[in-house]
């Protein structure tokens, strides 16, 4: 029997496993996928991005997605739509594949209801903890995961207990200075983006080698702050960690009403089932899958799902509101910087805007806004090349296609912005068990209803207009943006919200089940509201906090 069984090896699972192993406890870290080592990673676009070989085949494992069509909810399996909700099923999870543009939540994100009040149709609540509770763990994650950056004081930049990042920012493309100049001309404050990529060697990990393809790919130098590099390898080095790859947990089983006794696992290669026993179980499989696992673990004592006496399990699922926009920087209209410098590959853009995190506008009123990241269009060659296939609604082929593709790659570079604003929790965004569809292991798949709140789009559009002005100031052409209520499948949270009241929340403030003593959920499921930045830094930080609570629990049990 292990002291702790951690299910899922992504950001949160790695943080919990690391902390417990360092404290001397035995841990089984269970991962459905395989281990891809640093030296095995490549920039193979066909494998990673076109054939999605680090996520399950959608005919084997899938979700059903419910969308409103002509007033009725219609569920479509993702193997029909091609809209995958998997995010990196390998050791380290999707943290291997992230771009690593991270921010801490703002202190007011922990008290959104108190700060802004109710919003009709949104289930906003305050968190049971404050930023001050999480700040030490943000700092810990910054150091252990390896987040590089440069702190600048800003009204919406949260306070920090250390003066600055220990790793300086990664090297930047000349376009960053163009963004700086353009923002300043518009009285906007650009900030250096904290990035989970090492600029310098740190222990067993090398600094970034500026490959030009970072997001969507594993890192070949160990610079990216994946759970695998930063936490799982050091945890393995303690001798306390058992890494169980190609192992999928079908369900959790209780012996007594309030205690999980074992996880039913299946070897994804041989199909053999086995029981994994532990004193404590930590679910960390990514929000929508964690809720699904608990729902699939229903039994006589927990007829509506494990730890679901509140009826809240799976509800208030969160994605990220916002959208994206893009413009073309052409040689002939480029300002301030040299074209050759712009076309230099591999270097980062590293610019964020937090000016609109909270908005107090004379006309639009006072409301929660969001953050903005600038980046180049993804540098995948195939995906950029195939964007040139159409002209005036017709396909382009032959020599004309060759000219168009050549021109696209040599005469301009596309600069892009992404907006992150709150996805307001609401009654039409949740995960439940699909009554008819099962995966290849015979378990009901998760059915996700993914409706956004109208406020999310309103906020996104407000910020998109501001960002388009920045691109205009930069001299970009063919500027456009797109803001919709579509769910961002790579940014998922909620479904097991934490709170002090067992009647309205699934987890307590320590992210332990209100109903089941030895069951924790460590991934982003706990978040009642998501804030207006990517979730990853908060996931890492909270998982370190949860790990400390688990250690206290174990020590208490032992004593």
């Amino acid at each position, binding site marked *: 029997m292990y002291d702790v069984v951690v299910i899922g090896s992504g950001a949160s699972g790695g943080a919990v496993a690391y902390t417990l192993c360092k404290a001397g406890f035995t841990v089984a870290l269970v991962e459905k996928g395989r281990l*891809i080592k640093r030296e*095995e*990673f*490549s*920039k*193979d*676009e*066909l*494998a*990673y991005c*076109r*054939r*999605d*070989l*680090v996520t399950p*085949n959608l*005919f084997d494992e899938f979700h059903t997605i419910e969308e409103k069509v002509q007033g009725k909810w219609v569920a*479509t399996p993702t*193997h*029909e*739509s*091609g809209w995958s909700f998997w995010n990196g099923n390998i050791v380290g999870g999707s943290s291997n594949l992230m771009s690593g543009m991270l921010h801490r939540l703002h202190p007011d994100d922990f008290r959104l209801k108190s700060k802004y009040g109710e919003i009709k149709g949104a289930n906003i609540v305050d968190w049971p903890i404050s930023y001050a509770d999480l700040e030490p763990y943000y700092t810990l994650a910054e150091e252990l995961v390896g987040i590089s950056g440069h702190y600048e004081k800003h009204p919406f930049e949260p306070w920090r207990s250390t003066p600055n990042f220990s790793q300086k920012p990664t090297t930047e493309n000349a376009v960053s200075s163009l963004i700086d100049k353009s923002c300043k001309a518009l009285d906007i404050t650009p900030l250096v983006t904290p990035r989970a990529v090492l600029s310098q060697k740190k222990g067993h990990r090398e600094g970034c080698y500026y*490959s*030009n*393809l970072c997001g969507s*790919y594993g890192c*070949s130098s160990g610079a990216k702050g994946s759970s695998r590099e930063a936490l799982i390898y050091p945890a393995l080095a303690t001798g306390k960690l058992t890494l169980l790859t190609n192992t999928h947990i079908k369900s959790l089983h209780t012996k007594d009403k309030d205690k999980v006794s074992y996880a039913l696992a299946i070897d994804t290669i041989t199909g053999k089932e086995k029981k994994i026993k532990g004193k404590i179980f930590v679910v960390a499989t990514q929000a929508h899958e964690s809720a699904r696992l608990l729902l699939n673990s229903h039994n006589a004592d927990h007829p509506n799902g494990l730890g679901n006496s509140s009826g809240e399990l799976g509800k208030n699922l969160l994605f990220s509101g916002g959208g994206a926009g893009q413009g073309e920087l052409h040689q002939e209209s480029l300002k301030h910087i040299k074209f050759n410098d712009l076309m230099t*590959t*591999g270097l980062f853009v590293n610019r964020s805007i937090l000016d609109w995190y909270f908005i107090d506008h004379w006309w639009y009123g006072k409301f929660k806004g969001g953050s903005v990241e600038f980046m180049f269009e993804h*540098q995948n*060659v*195939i995906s*950029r*090349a*195939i964007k040139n*296939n159409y002209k005036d609604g*017709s*396909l382009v*082929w*032959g*020599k004309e*296609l*060759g*000219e168009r*593709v*050549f021109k*696209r*790659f*040599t005469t301009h570079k596309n600069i892009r912005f992404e907006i992150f604003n709150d996805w307001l929790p609401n009654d039409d965004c949740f995960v439940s068990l699909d009554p008819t569809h099962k995966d290849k292991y015979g378990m009901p798949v998760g059915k996700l209803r993914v409706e956004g709140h109208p406020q999310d789009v309103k906020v996104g559009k407000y910020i998109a207009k501001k960002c388009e002005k920045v691109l205009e100031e930069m001299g970009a052409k063919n500027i456009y943006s797109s803001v919709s209520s579509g769910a961002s499948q790579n940014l998922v949270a909620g479904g097991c919200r934490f709170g002090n009241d067992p009647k309205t929340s699934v987890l307590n403030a320590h992210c332990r089940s209100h109903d089941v003593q030895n069951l924790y959920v460590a991934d982003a499921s706990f978040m009642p509201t998501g804030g207006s930045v990517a979730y990853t830094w908060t996931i890492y930080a909270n998982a370190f906090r949860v790990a400390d609570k688990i250690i206290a629990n174990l020590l208490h049990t032992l004593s």
Partner: protein
Amino acid sequence: MKRRIFLIFASLLGLSTQVQARKVITFEHNFKALEPTLRAVQEHLFPQGSRIPSAKEMDLTKFLFETMKHSSFDRDIKDFVFEGARELEKREKNRFTKLSIELKEKALREYEETSYGSNWLGRMMTLSMEGLFSDPIYGANKQEKGWKSIHAYGAFPLAKEKYLGV
């Protein structure tokens, strides 16, 4: 319309006549039967003398065969590629491969006028460009000529095995 719904819709319209036979005829057999058509289409879309390497020079039909054969390839798209080629030959009375360049252009542009044909040609272009600009290990970006032709380079490290060894 979602991609798979479109594919299913197209089949229901009668564009596929071999739904049952598909189950027993092997992929290799299907591909071999349609290879001349697929090759002719690829070579027309990616001719010699362009800025980017030709289908013939890069052997894009071999890439198409190998990538469609791999377990990661979407089974619906596999059927669609075959069905679309059959439909083209049906429209051209099984003479597409023998047409002149001008008549091939005319035939493909007319095929493109149908939503099904446009969708199929778009898919053929995408699959061909996947070969041209993919990691050289897949054999259709020989000596990185695809990347070099547009001054764009894949990042390092290059792949050591195809499809992550899956």
